[in-house]
């Protein structure tokens, strides 16, 4: 029998859970835990410069690997600083466990120093939260936390740990439970066979089908099954911003991504379809545009692990609750064995129509003889990295350009805050990826607004040698805000101009990194090559791009999916 203090039990449980990295920041209520961390070397701790960044790091790690990330912070301000990160992970269903110190249980409720009701504060943005009431419970709580975070529809789980639960000289028997029992939590393990059969029959009978896939395919590790099914059927596929990489972008069946800034052909095909097979997506308002005008002729099959995602905004004709990989596998078998075959003539006509749309617009932008267009920066990066980099992003125009012009053929490589749209996500997320993928190229495509929301992490990058490449598409404005003001407020640029920008080159140098400025179009390609050749250096590339560029296509507000601006002057 092994006797351990609560703090040692906590660290030991993390070891037994197989956790390699935790990201965090110490403080009073977490000091027993930090001491236990010091006395071992299996679990490595990364000291960030702001707790929000610790959460985004854990998040980037989780998105790149599919494994839950881990965060450790102190009570009060340490805990509240994690909230934006937790909400970001929650909106995108990212598995993670956030361990928060808390004041001693004897002080709770007394407005003690650095006391915050973290269970209450985090409640609306977590999948679940747990609080430790006795040190002996720690191993079981840790096991439960990871189990809940990583299974079903994943999400963040907060564990609140009062300081007296980790007192060094109070020891208890350590038992790491082999299994977790939760009578009230049983995520579906397969879809309803009858519903799956019905869906396949509908797929076979469809004349204008489209597959609409989302982040659930990536989270559910079902990209192989999805690709197989789509290729077997020969139908067009589009995916959400979160689903980028779930199907190879370079494949001709792929129409690009859909929604507010999706491709013309994706949005047109969705609108005119007669059958939508939705796999692990959630008919988010950035996809559907006005729901009452959404795809008037389409019947809908919706596969999702979360029943609450089905028929929430758009009613499904055939709901299928289950893990996407298992459901798709069954569909593949049924399609293979089906006596009915797709209507070849109808499908050919459908493709002909889609190709016309594709030819009409595709992805395009106007180049300029002297100005650097943000789109061409992304295209150059895509070429120079053979489309194989991990790309994290922040929020704004640069994010949309990155998603539009970097073509991802693999899952887990496009990493952005889609649901919450958190500026400041990009750099720490890139750090979380680089730490565990040291040999891969990791780009953070950002804007001069977003990068300043977590710029302090340049220091963390120095400490842990994280040579990510920061690509700052510097348009000297909160570009996306400015675009909306151009389009909806007669170009009244209220507070969207960013004056007094720092010299990012000097700033990077001050943190011990390399800074490169690109402001001439003819230098773009050669300088980017030089940057990418600096394998062991973090390089901050400050690129002065056209300040007046807009992101297109853009759906017309309150219209249907097919109502779009294609440029500043063309509206369809």
């Amino acid at each position, binding site marked *: 029998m092994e006797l351990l203090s609560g703090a040692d039990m906590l660290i030991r449980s993390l070891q037994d859970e197989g956790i390699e990295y935790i990201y965090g920041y110490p403080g009073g209520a977490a000091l027993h835990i930090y001491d236990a961390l010091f006395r071992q070397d299996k679990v490595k701790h990364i000291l960030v410069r702001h707790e929000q960044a610790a959460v985004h790091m854990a998040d980037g790690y989780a998105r790149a690997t599919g494994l839950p990330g881990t965060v450790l912070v102190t009570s009060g301000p340490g805990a509240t600083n994690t909230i934006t990160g937790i909400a970001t992970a929650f909106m995108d269903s990212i598995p993670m466990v956030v361990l928060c110190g808390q004041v001693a249980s004897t002080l709770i409720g007394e407005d003690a120093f650095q006391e915050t009701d973290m*269970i209450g504060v985090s*409640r*609306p943005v977590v999948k*679940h939260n747990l609080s430790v009431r006795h040190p002996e419970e720690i191993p079981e709580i840790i096991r439960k936390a990871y189990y*809940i975070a990583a299974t079903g529809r994943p999400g963040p789980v907060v564990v609140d740990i009062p300081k007296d639960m980790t007192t060094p000289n109070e020891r208890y028997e350590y038992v790491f439970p082999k299994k977790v029992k939760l009578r*009230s*939590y049983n995520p579906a393990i397969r879809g309803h066979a009858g519903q799956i059969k019905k869906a396949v029959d509908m797929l076979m009978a469809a004349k204008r089908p489209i597959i609409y896939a989302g982040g659930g395919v990536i989270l559910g590790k079902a990209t192989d099954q999805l690709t197989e099914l789509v290729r077997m059927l020969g139908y067009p596929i589009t995916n959400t911003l979160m689903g980028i990489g779930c199907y190879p972008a370079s494949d001709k069946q792929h129409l690009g991504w859909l929604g507010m800034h999706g491709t013309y052909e994706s949005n047109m095909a969705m609108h005119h379809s007669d059958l939508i097979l939705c796999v692990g997506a959630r008919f988010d308002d950035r996809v559907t545009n006005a729901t009452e005008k959404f795809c008037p002729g389409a019947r809908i099959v919706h596969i999702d692990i979360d*029943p*609450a995602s089905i028929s929430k905004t758009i009613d499904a004709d055939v709901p299928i609750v289950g893990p996407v990989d298992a459901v798709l596998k069954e569909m593949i078998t049924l399609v293979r064995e089906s006596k009915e075959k797709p209507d070849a003539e109808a499908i050919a006509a459908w493709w002909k129509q889609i190709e016309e749309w594709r030819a009409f617009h595709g992805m395009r932008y106007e180049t300029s003889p002297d100005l650097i267009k943000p789109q061409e920066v992304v295209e150059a990066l895509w070429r120079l990295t053979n489309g194989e980099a991990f790309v994290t992003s922040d929020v704004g125009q640069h994010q949309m350009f990155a998603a539009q012009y970097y073509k991802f053929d693999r899952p887990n490589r496009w990493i952005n805050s889609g649901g919450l749209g958190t500026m400041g996500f990009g750099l720490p997320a890139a750090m979380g990826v680089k730490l565990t993928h040291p040999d891969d190229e990791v780009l953070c495509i950002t804007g001069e607004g977003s990068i300043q929301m977590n710029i302090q992490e340049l220091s963390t990058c120095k400490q842990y040698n994280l040579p990510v490449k920061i690509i700052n598409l510097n348009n000297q404005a909160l570009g996306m805000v400015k675009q909306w003001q151009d389009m909806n407020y007669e170009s009244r640029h209220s507070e969207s101009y960013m004056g007094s920008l720092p010299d990012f080159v000097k700033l990077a140098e001050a943190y011990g990194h390399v800074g490169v400025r690109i402001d001439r179009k003819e230098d773009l390609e050669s300088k980017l090559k030089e940057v990418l050749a600096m394998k062991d250096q973090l390089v901050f590339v400050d690129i002065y791009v056209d300040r007046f560029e807009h992101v297109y296509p853009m759906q017309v507000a309150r219209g249907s999916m097919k109502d779009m601006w294609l440029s500043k002057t063309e509206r369809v």
Partner: protein
Amino acid sequence: MRRIISVLLENEPGALSRVVGLFSQRNYNIETLTVAPTEDETLSRLTVTTTGSDKVIEQITKQLNKLIEVVKLVDLTEGAHIERELMLVKLKATGSQRAEIKRTVDIFRGQIVDVTSSVYTVQLAGNSEKLDGFIQAVGTSGVLEVVRSGVSGIARGEKVLSL
């Protein structure tokens, strides 16, 4: 439409606040809410009455089911069910009012559970309409204080909500 949703909930600290938080967070109505432990002390039984379109009610039940501490739930209004609410009312009762109130209490099958020279305290159980009816019958001018428990409900017949 008005619905009565009955929930078996882990009897743990914080579980109730998750249920209540869900309703305000997602803009759902709570009309009444009752909760108490069951014969199995690890479980609480919670009854919530709410209103909303079928779509909203579907979301409410799905979102409730997603809460880790919700073990099981049923929308009682989908089948035959019994609903009861308990009310205690303090009424001004002097002179001829006393006999009058006594008669009304009898008609509604209530009981006078406490008496002073000027006040009756009446206990009444029934569905919410019956309780409303009683208040109407005695007239709001004589009512000094009302306390209602909120609705509890149970399915008719063999159907049970248990583990």
